[in-house]
């Protein structure tokens, strides 16, 4: 390990360490890309560090490394919601000095990587929440939540489906991403700067809509309140439901007709919107950032810059189906050949992507929200009371760590 951290002896190659998932297709793509990089830049040697795939474990490992002031790894791969946390802690470099061309990326992916006006990470690939709908059960997807309820109910009755719509309702991060899409659909936001704004009329409408989909309209099964991504995908690919909210990964998997009963009979679009809002897609994906203690920031930047080039993004799309973060690529016929989803559909959804609250304490805020949302959805609490409670606790947390601005606004 220690060999990787020292400054390069003059003449020898600069060593840059990169923690990555080395498993499966993703690891293979990256190995090919790094092999080509080695030919291009013989002065830099990239050493891969195998790290866990589970986000929680990876986060914990990074925090331990960076908090201890280690200069290794030089590059870190961050989830969309970690950049502000790492930036505020002073663990990753302000990338401004490398003058990255931010205009050629989707604005939402850049916004998610800014903290206090500075850019700390480069968007590597993008994930968005989307509505999967069955093209054999209806002619067009719903544009509003009311239409969604109607067509889900109609499809259930006409085609004897078990469910109308499925989403991720277990008490975990996924629930907050789903809720943030409903919330954006009604024009609300979780956070406005240092002020918690989730307990608003829009928040109430969003949470009430989710709750009524279960108990009033009966289109979402109560068991969805224990579901993660995969349970929803199984329901959709077994043909049990007309709609599903999920991430892009499910698209290619469900085209395999050996496993899927709906292969070739579905398409994707944005989640619907209600009065006063616009369709919203939760933004996920991966970013590359540079360790603030790195001995080789310039060499590390060369690696980051190389991996985020258009042709490398195309290769990732081809190899593992991940969406490029550069809008220009969506006009490239090569992307249409690489992705299972038609690029125009993907792009239309990504343009509605909204970052989750950009704050260093996002994970703690999300935990509070998860609990209160789940309480409301499992009918332990009324939606208004749950949101008010969440807002109070979230605001108290922001104020305690010096990131808050004034009291929680209720009923605004």
């Amino acid at each position, binding site marked *: 390990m220690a060999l990787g951290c020292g400054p390069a002896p003059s003449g020898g190659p600069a060593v840059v360490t990169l923690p990555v998932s080395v498993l499966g297709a993703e690891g293979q793509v990256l190995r090919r890309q790094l092999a080509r990089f080695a030919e291009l830049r013989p002065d830099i040697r990239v050493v891969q560090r195998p790290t866990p795939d589970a986000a*929680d474990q990876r986060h914990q490992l990074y925090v331990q490394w960076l908090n201890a002031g280690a200069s290794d790894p030089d590059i870190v791969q961050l989830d969309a919601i970690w950049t502000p946390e790492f930036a505020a*802690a*002073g663990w990753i470099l302000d990338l401004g000095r490398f003058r990255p061309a931010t205009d050629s990326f989707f604005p939402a992916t850049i916004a998610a990587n800014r903290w206090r006006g500075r850019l700390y990470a480069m968007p590597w690939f993008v994930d968005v929440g989307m509505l999967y709908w069955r093209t054999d059960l209806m002619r067009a997807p719903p544009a509003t939540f009311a239409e969604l309820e109607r067509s889900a109910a109609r499809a259930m009755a006409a085609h004897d489906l078990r469910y109308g719509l499925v989403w991720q309702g277990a008490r975990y991060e996924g629930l907050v991403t789903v809720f943030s899409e409903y919330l954006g659909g009604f024009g609300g936001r979780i956070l406005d700067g240092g002020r918690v704004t989730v307990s608003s009329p829009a928040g109430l409408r969003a949470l009430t809509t989710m709750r009524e989909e279960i108990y009033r309209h009966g289109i979402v*099964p*109560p*068991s969805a*309140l224990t579901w993660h991504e995969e349970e929803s995908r199984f329901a959709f690919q077994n043909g049990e439901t007309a709609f599903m909210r999920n991430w892009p990964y499910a698209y290619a998997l469900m085209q395999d007709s050996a496993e899927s009963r709906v292969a070739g009979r579905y398409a994707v679009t944005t989640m619907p919107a209600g009065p006063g809002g616009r369709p919203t897609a939760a933004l996920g994906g991966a970013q590359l950032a540079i360790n603030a203690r790195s001995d080789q920031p310039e060499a590390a930047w060369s690696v980051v810059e190389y991996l985020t080039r258009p042709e490398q993004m195309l290769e990732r799309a081809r190899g593992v189906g991940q969406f490029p973060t550069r809008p220009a690529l969506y006009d490239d016929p090569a992307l249409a050949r690489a992705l299972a989803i038609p690029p125009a559909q993907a792009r239309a959804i990504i343009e509605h992507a909204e970052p989750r609250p950009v704050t260093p*304490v996002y994970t703690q805020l999300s935990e509070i929200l998860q609990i209160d949302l*789940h309480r409301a959805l*499992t009918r332990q609490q009324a939606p208004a009371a749950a949101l008010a409670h969440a807002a109070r606790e979230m605001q108290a947390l922001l104020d305690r760590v010096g990131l808050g601005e004034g009291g929680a606004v209720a009923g605004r």
Partner: protein
Amino acid sequence: MRGGERGPGSRAPRGTAEEREARLARALVAPALATILLVALFPLLWTVWESVHLHDLRMPWLGRPFVGAANYIEALGDPRFWGALAHTLLFTAATVTLELGLGCVLALAMNRAFRGRALVRAAVLVPWAIPTVVSALLWRFMFEGQSGIANTLLVQAGLVGEPPVWFIRTGLAWVPVVLADVWKTTPFVALLLLAGLQNIDASLYEAARIDGASPWRQFRHVTLPLLKPAILVALIFRTLDAFRVFDLIYVMTGGGPGTSTEPIALYTFNSLLQNLRFGYGSALSVIVFAITFALALGYIRFLGAGLTETRA
């Protein structure tokens, strides 16, 4: 050492030998003692030290100042902490009672002479041998969804009309959790009690029978008092284990719905390792330690009298 208290003049050769022996004993015990200090006391003191500091790995800009009892005060004013404590007590009371009752019945049955007894004794241990995470997953699958085994059986038996979704109902979510724990740990209790039963002299039952004692009175006045030490051991082990329950609930409900099945160990884990609040999480750990320690002392005090009596 008594030998050391005597004047130097009166020191008998035997005393010196005693002293030497004592020195040797101390030297022999020292490595073990040092190990205990290192692995038990040091982490404990470290946790106590952390618990009086503000230490938030996610917010290094706050520093690591000494905050006195602030973390403890926060815990005492935190409804989620009190909820978690209540859930833990509920879980402990429910599982320990059921396990002790069922374990006693199982032990009495296994204590009888019948064909294939050795096989039954081995078979009873199977649930205990399965790793908790695996058995937790098994039980989750049985109760999950509207078409799990549990719901299918209940509907077939006509006990329920509409199959419930166990894990989204505050009260119902406890049922699979408690069942899984009872299923897994009853064999352990049964074996402990069986060992106790086998230590009881058969002639006592003979005497009781001759005096005309009914089976119930034999159980009440012979078995139970003599089984007390074994019961005490089972109680201590099970109570302390149940109080620190973590993996079972982590896998089965994750503490949900909301936080209504969250035990104190899971909340501590969340604070420490999810939210990386080392100070607050350590304060919670210290509180859990204090409670389990008090419980253990209490058991030994109230039931320990019996323990020493029967040994004498």
